[in-house]
């Protein structure tokens, strides 16, 4: 059995994060000592790694909980997991598009501010950001 400190060290994660996983229903200690300290079984480290890898792929903790539940559902199959992976991929693609659009808007603003020696009052970037219509087209 592993104490929370040992599991945290092995998983390169903080004990607070492990307690948070517990509060989110992702990782429950196998038992507790008479003094109330958490003790984890051998599979806990594997689960910590699973959570970390899933987070690295963009899954939220709630989604990771669903994935873990799927693993314990007899009627579930790999297609159920793949569908969630595809949906996550779609969500990431939307975020990437949105960020590309933000990046292009910033490019336009940066190009508009060719004379960096202007006073802050005349800064076209600040002027564009102040536009009431919320657009990022540079002020003329």
């Amino acid at each position: 059995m592993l104490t929370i400190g040992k599991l945290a060290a092995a998983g390169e994660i903080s004990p607070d994060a492990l307690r948070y996983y517990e509060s989110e229903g992702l990782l429950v200690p196998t038992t507790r000592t008479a003094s109330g300290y958490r003790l984890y079984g051998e599979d806990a480290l594997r689960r910590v790694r699973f959570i970390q890898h899933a987070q690295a792929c963009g899954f939220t903790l709630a989604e990771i909980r669903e994935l873990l539940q799927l693993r314990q559902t007899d009627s579930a199959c790999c297609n159920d997991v793949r569908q969630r992976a595809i949906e996550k991929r779609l969500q990431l693609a939307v975020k990437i598009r949105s960020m590309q659009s933000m990046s292009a808007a910033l490019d336009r603003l940066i190009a508009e501010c060719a004379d960096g020696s202007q006073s802050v009052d005349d800064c076209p970037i600040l002027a564009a950001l102040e536009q009431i219509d919320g657009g990022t087209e540079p002020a003329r």
Partner: protein
Amino acid sequence: MKVELIYAPGCAECITSKAGLRSAAEATLAGVEWTEINVLDALDYAVELGVLTLPALAIDGSLVFAALPTPAQLRDELLRRACHD
């Protein structure tokens, strides 16, 4: 009118629902163009439509149902659109 079912391969819900939806669409309007799109073959198009969950259903290039409708819901939507055309 063009109806597109966007699905993930192996989706059990799609397999059970698509025949009923297709029949409802074809029985509701003559000349409905029914297409089934594997999302893995058309990821960019799915993103363009705004698909975030699967399966989903688009009509004439717009995402109309983020989750599969019942055949009756699809029929109602097709009739509503046909009336507005």
